[in-house]
């Protein structure tokens, strides 16, 4: 499944970049995140409780940030395993100045393996758009200091 889109933050590039690399912000905003521990440089292990297409799963995830070009672009890879199926997402993120704000664009692929693929595929695209939208809103809230 191909996923792409953009989100505009009312902040400069440095602030947005720092935010996206912040462990605490990720821990707070990743959907259904129950814990996030650092397992290496730019690598985390997280437990995410997510419901997709009415199927709730507890995903044990590894999250890695690679191919970093500070303030410009990076790749985020999330691999999750749950009883309901495995998920793998690879997304390329980039930042661009826009007036007094910063536009983040993302472009990636998400693959769903196992029973979840056979049950929820039709609902996956809208469900992932919702999840991604909520994530950025939450991150934006972190930026302005208010928590959601």
């Amino acid at each position, binding site marked *: *499944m191909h996923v792409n889109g953009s989100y505009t933050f009312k902040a400069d590039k440095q602030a947005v970049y720092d935010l996206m690399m912040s462990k605490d912000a990720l821990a707070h905003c990743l959907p259904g995140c129950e814990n996030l521990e650092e397992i290496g440089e730019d690598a985390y292990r997280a437990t995410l409780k997510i419901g997709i297409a009415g199927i709730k799963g507890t995903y044990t995830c590894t999250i890695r940030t690679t191919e970093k070009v500070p303030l410009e672009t990076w790749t985020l890879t999330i691999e999750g395993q749950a*009883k309901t*199926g*495995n998920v793998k997402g690879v997304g390329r993120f980039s930042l661009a100045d826009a007036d007094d704000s910063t536009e983040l664009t993302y472009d990636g692929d998400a*693959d*769903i*393996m*196992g*029973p979840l*693929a*056979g*049950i929820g*595929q*039709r609902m996956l695209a809208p469900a992932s758009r919702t999840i991604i939208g909520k994530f950025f809103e939450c991150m934006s809230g972190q930026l302005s200091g208010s928590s959601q």
Partner: protein
Amino acid sequence: MVLPKLVGSPIKRREDPRLVEGTSTYVDDIKLHGTLYCGIVRSVYAHARIKSIDTEAARQHPGVFAVVTGEDLKAGGIGMLPVAHRFGEGLKVPPRYPLAVGEVHFAGEAVAAVVATDRYVARDAVDLVQVEYEPLPAVVDLDAAYAGAPYVHEEFGTNIAFEWKLFNESGASIGEADVKLSQRIENQRLAPVPMETRGVVADYDKGKKSLTLWTSTQIPHLLRTFLSLLIGMPEHHVRVVAPEVGGGFGQKLNVYAEEGIASALSIQLGRPIKWIESRAESMASSIHGRGQTDYVDVGATKDGKITHLHVHILADLGAYHQLLTPVIPTLTGLMLTGPYTIPNLQCTVHGLFTNKVPTDAYRGAGRPEATYLIERVCDLVADATGVDPVEVRRRNFIGSDKFPYTTAAGLAYDSGNYPLALDKALSHIKYDEFRAEQAAARKNGKYLGIGFSTYVEVCGMGPSAAMPAGFGWESSTVRVDPTGKVTVTTGASPHGQGQETTFAQIAADELGVGVDDVIINHGDTAGSPYGVGTFGSRGTAVGGAAMMLAIQKVQEKAKRIAAHMLEASVDDITFENGKFGVKGAPDRAKSLGEIAWIAYTADTIPASIEPGLEATSFFEPPNFTYPFGTHIAFVEVDGDTGEVTLKRYVAVDDCGRVINPMIVDGQVHGGLAQGIAQALFEEVIYDDQGQLVTGSLMDYALPTARGLVSFETDHTTTPSPVNPLGVKGVGEAGTIGSTPAIVNAVVDALKPFGVTHIDMPMRGEKLWRIMNK
């Protein structure tokens, strides 16, 4: 001869009361003391190397008795699943163990099995088995699989499992034909979806060293043979029982992993083991059907006579061969010319491995693909030449005086009268009036279409010499009990075909007893001679014929006993109105019951006559049967949404002699629903990672009454000369005939938009795009 009273009459199915009352026994209704439940761990990847399997957490889970992997079963001497074929070295056969060893090749493949106190604990324990995979590239698309790497089975260095060719050309080449056309035609993958999913109960008796397996199967006898080889137990120590089977459609014409797994676990643990397939497992791991991409080149004269048919079939085999996987697409090749005299035929089939569930026989099994192809070709030729589609068919029909007729593919059609069925179907409709109505409607933005399908199918599967691994015969025992009641066994174990009714109709007529005096037993290898099974529309044509031969033996013996009782010569004994008598002395005639009592008490019969009154016969058909018919579909395509509404459906089928017209109609109705559904709704979809997208009945569109119409059925009767009943078989006719009729009707409706072909299914979105291009 007694006049037929029951044969030909629409008596109600004797099976139905127990089915509608819920008093029948399916596999899940088998409840043995001490039963443990099996759950299967399945691959989440379409193609991956198994790096490790950690079973410890599952083993430690309360209520879990055992966890086994592919390596465990292999070490325990469990072999590989069988494939029946005549390709010899020409077929690449990848090893297929009941539980994967080393690599998995489709999402849903069994990787490990757990055994627990109940099915819920088993399900929980399945989730505790940790399998570490190294994902490998998945092969999904047929054209890509044919083109080259990546490979499903790296060791073969190709995805082509086999190449099969037909070549019969003489005279002018296709290049010299007046009209030449080419078309790529897809025949999408389908899921059979029987109402009862598969299930097994395996019970090992330590004392007798014997195994009983209850399983939802179409082939209990063949399964017993293959199971004994799979698990290494002597065949005579294995008993297989197919209790009530809630639909099969070919999906249960197979030998499955779980049958071997449950048997091995019962032997290992000394307890009965039950496994019942969930719907999700059924969609993701039991065989699928169809799955072809066909490249077609046609040559024709300008007046619509088809002279050349060249077809390249890319057949989606899936990841492994199941029992008949490689045979199915060759049936497409053999039936390509349909009911037509097409002199020049070339066909190449490439069977291709893909990282998907294996395909195998699904209602029609290779013949719906052929019928769909040639019936689409007829309409393409009609489009290209301007000849009416009905006339194209008429001009290409094999004449009714040409039977037996040998086709360009080498098959000998037994009997047929194709124009008769076409004329009868046309008599139900007003074709000219419809064309006028269609033209007027188009002016008002309403798109009506009519579609024809004049099909012929190969049925009555035998003879043995023409089958993928023999076994084209069938057996039956007919026993008259001392009180004159009749117990029949048939090897053709039914699963919804109504053989308990139709076979009893035949036996009752032939033995002069009431239909309630006959019972038809089947499905238990301990209770009948070895048999083959019900598939390929063979139940009555081969199984019924075997019973007929056994009945004739019983009749002969009854005559000898009657001669003794009546102190007459055997040659003078007649069988009239249900009684055995002496010519010219009807008042002294003896009933079957009176004769049976003497046969069993045996104190008065001469030594030259053996006691008892029963006979067993094995029937080997000399040829296949070739049922045929004409189907006509009327559709309307909504100009705003593209949604197809089926307006009317006329089916004229010729299945030879009809034993029970109500059951024949039921078979036709069910077949139509499935064939129409392929045209309109059904499609198994895998994503490009080999993940099954249509894994539930929310996503896989089965037909319902809402999308169908009240069918108009009629028949012509052209008896088959290849069996003593004159029957041809009707189990698959509806499925085979209907799919192209619908697609032809939709393409006809959308003619104003310049289309000549649309790939199935005819979804509203697809048609809307055509109309709004």
